């Protein structure tokens, strides 16, 4: 995977004596610490711009709090930081229809214009389709990038299909199409989403997956503790539903699974106590969770957007067993087993790990996890290169 921690090609844009090109990133997310999936995705892009020689400024639309510590942290990360209080009305109409005009905060316009006048941006990068109206504040000489994070057109349907109440933002295809057309490039986080948007007639879609740098190698497990499975997730509806279904399928087997399953994160509050299930609750640092398990589980029954729980274990040298919805966007690269549903996942678990120590199965999974990681890195590097070339051609 390309190392984005240090600028690799600043000479492309910033020959000696010339100022670096500038990018304005606009977000409502609290970026430091980046402990949410969307914050981490945004910081991935920040690192990407920096690796291309850009100086990155931030317009923080304060929806997730602001304090002196955050001010200090953001000042260390970004060239210039402006913070605007969110006053977006965010009306949700009957049927859970959200209009972008109701979710966009016009209060951002003046701040963005002033920042641009002071700093002269080459690129403006907004996150989520309802921030796309901001792009209209910039003339055609500024490259406009929209990171979609998810497909929000009729997103509510995915919830209702799973018997859940729609959450957060869902808009019409028409509204989303208008938003996408405001950008010179719209980034899709999954290959399937890129294909879906392209199928709707958009020709400005660039696919950029979410991958984080590898922090742990794929190595053989030490024998000082039992083989351990693990699930880390927040307490959102999809995670609660997925974990409830997975555990009920496990219990329905009638025999206890011989290996512990460690559950961590906000989802713990919603997980029933059961034999072999160990609830850790919130973990301060991800490595404390991943160092305590051998195989990660992702029993997703549905969901939208970023599948961080599927990618993240591969950063910590752990294989992942996932259902198909959990691997959405990654299936073309996936070398480990994938399962149609939680019934198939539990069948596999009992078949391969039910009566044995599972050492040989773990060994096989570790090899295929390493291969998957390599494939992900290769794809990511290719897409980063594509985005970098596109930016270079425009700036």
């Amino acid at each position, binding site marked *: 995977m390309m190392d984005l921690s240090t600028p690799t090609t600043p000479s492309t844009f*910033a020959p000696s*004596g*010339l*100022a*670096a090109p500038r990018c304005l990133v606009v977000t409502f997310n609290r970026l430091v610490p980046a402990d949410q999936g969307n914050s981490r995705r945004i910081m991935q892009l920040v690192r990407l711009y920096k690796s291309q020689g850009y100086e990155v400024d931030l317009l923080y639309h*304060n929806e997730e709090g*602001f*304090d*002196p*510590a955050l*001010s*200090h942290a953001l*000042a260390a990360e970004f060239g*210039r*930081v*402006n*913070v*605007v*209080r969110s*006053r977006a009305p965010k009306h949700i109409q009957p049927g859970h229809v959200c209009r972008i005009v109701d979710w966009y905060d016009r*209060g951002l316009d*003046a*701040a963005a214009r*002033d920042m641009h*006048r*002071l*700093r*002269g941006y080459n690129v403006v990068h907004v996150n989520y389709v309802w921030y796309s109206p901001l792009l209209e504040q910039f003339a055609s000489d500024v490259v406009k990038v929209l990171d979609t994070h998810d497909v929000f057109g009729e997103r509510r349907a995915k919830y209702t299909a799973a018997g859940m109440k729609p959450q957060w933002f869902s808009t019409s295809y028409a509204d989303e199409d208008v938003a996408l057309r405001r950008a010179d490039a719209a980034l899709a986080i999954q290959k399937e989403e890129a294909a879906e948007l392209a199928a709707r007639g958009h020709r400005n879609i660039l696919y950029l997956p979410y991958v984080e740098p590898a922090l742990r190698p794929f190595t053989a497990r030490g024998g000082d503790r039992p083989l351990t499975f693990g699930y880390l997730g927040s307490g959102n509806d999809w995670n609660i539903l997925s974990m409830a279904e997975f555990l009920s399928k496990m219990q329905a087997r009638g025999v206890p699974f011989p290996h512990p399953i460690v559950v961590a994160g906000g989802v713990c509050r919603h997980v029933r106590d059961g034999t072999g299930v160990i609830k850790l609750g919130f973990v301060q640092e991800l490595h404390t969770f991943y160092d305590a398990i051998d195989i990660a589980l992702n029993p997703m029954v549905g969901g939208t957007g970023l599948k961080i729980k599927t990618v993240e274990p591969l950063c910590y040298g752990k294989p992942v067993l996932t259902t198909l919805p959990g691997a959405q966007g990654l299936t073309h690269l996936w070398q480990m087993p994938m399962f149609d549903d939680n019934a198939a996942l539990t069948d596999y678990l009992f078949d391969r790990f039910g009566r044995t120590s599972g050492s040989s199965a773990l060994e096989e999974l570790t090899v295929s996890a390493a291969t998957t990681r390599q494939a992900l890195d290769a794809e990511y590097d290719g897409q980063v290169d594509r985005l970098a070339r596109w930016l270079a051609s425009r700036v």
Partner: protein
Amino acid sequence: MNAPDAAFAATKAALIVDVWVDLFAASLARSGALGNGLPVVLTDTLRVLPLLESQSPIGWIHTSPRHYQDHVLVTHGQPAPRLRIDAAKHPADASQTLRRASLCLVAVPERDSAAAMAALAAKALQARASLLLFGTPQAGGWGAFDGLVRQGALQPVEAGGARVLASAGLAGALGDAGLHDVERGVALAAQMARARQADIHVERLDQAHLKLRLRIDPVLLVAAGSQTLAHHIVHEGRALFNSRGLGALLLPWGAPCQARLLLRNVRARIDGSQIALGGQSLAPLAVDYTEHGAFLKLELPAVAPGRDALLHLSLPRDAVPNDGFCDIGAAEFTIETA
């Protein structure tokens, strides 16, 4: 007027030149004459131009190191650091900013930084920005600008006791009245007050002199000497003293003036505060204690050429609360250009 009086008047006129520069530049920005370009100020001291800033963001380029962080207001948001570029540390940034300038105001310095400043001003000229050079006639740095004056065909402008040179377009806009155009000042103040862009009252004293009263959000003036205080100011959006009761306030312009400051959250009498401007210690004219806080009235001398326009206040220890910060809740400045 006898010779000493005339000399005194000339000196004072030179010291208040930034008031007139601010009025003129603000009127240009307000009229739309700057287009989408940026007004840029080249200086070696810490100053503000509050009227111009009420009309447009300003890029400040410094040719001497600065040690304070000050702030601008962001609509519906937290204060943000005022853009001040250290030209020696960030030459590329300075050049990039100058390339986008439509107006470049050059505060001709007293010290050695004049050559560096002239080189920066030349970049603004290359970028077709209009130039306006101003300072005291005695300023030691004028010589460094001789080449630029010739190259840019800068024209002398009538400015009382100050020396001002401007690009032909600006000199034309200044007209016969020159920089000290009372009509322009009165009209601008009325427009800004109507548009609620600034709380300013301008009174004509005679054909060439004004009395200005400016009420300004003190967040625009407070200067933080440490990163910690700067981040607290950004977070709270208040003109804070630090936890030991030390505060610094940038004065609008360098002219002698009367100041009224509302100090809030002080826990004891502050008559014994230590106050300094440059090397001078000052005593308050009066301190009025009200339910809003303590109103501190000061008679401030001119800021000496080449010095930062920083007023330092040190509150008595027993006036500083243990559970928070004192702040300046309101600030008013009155100056006469006569």
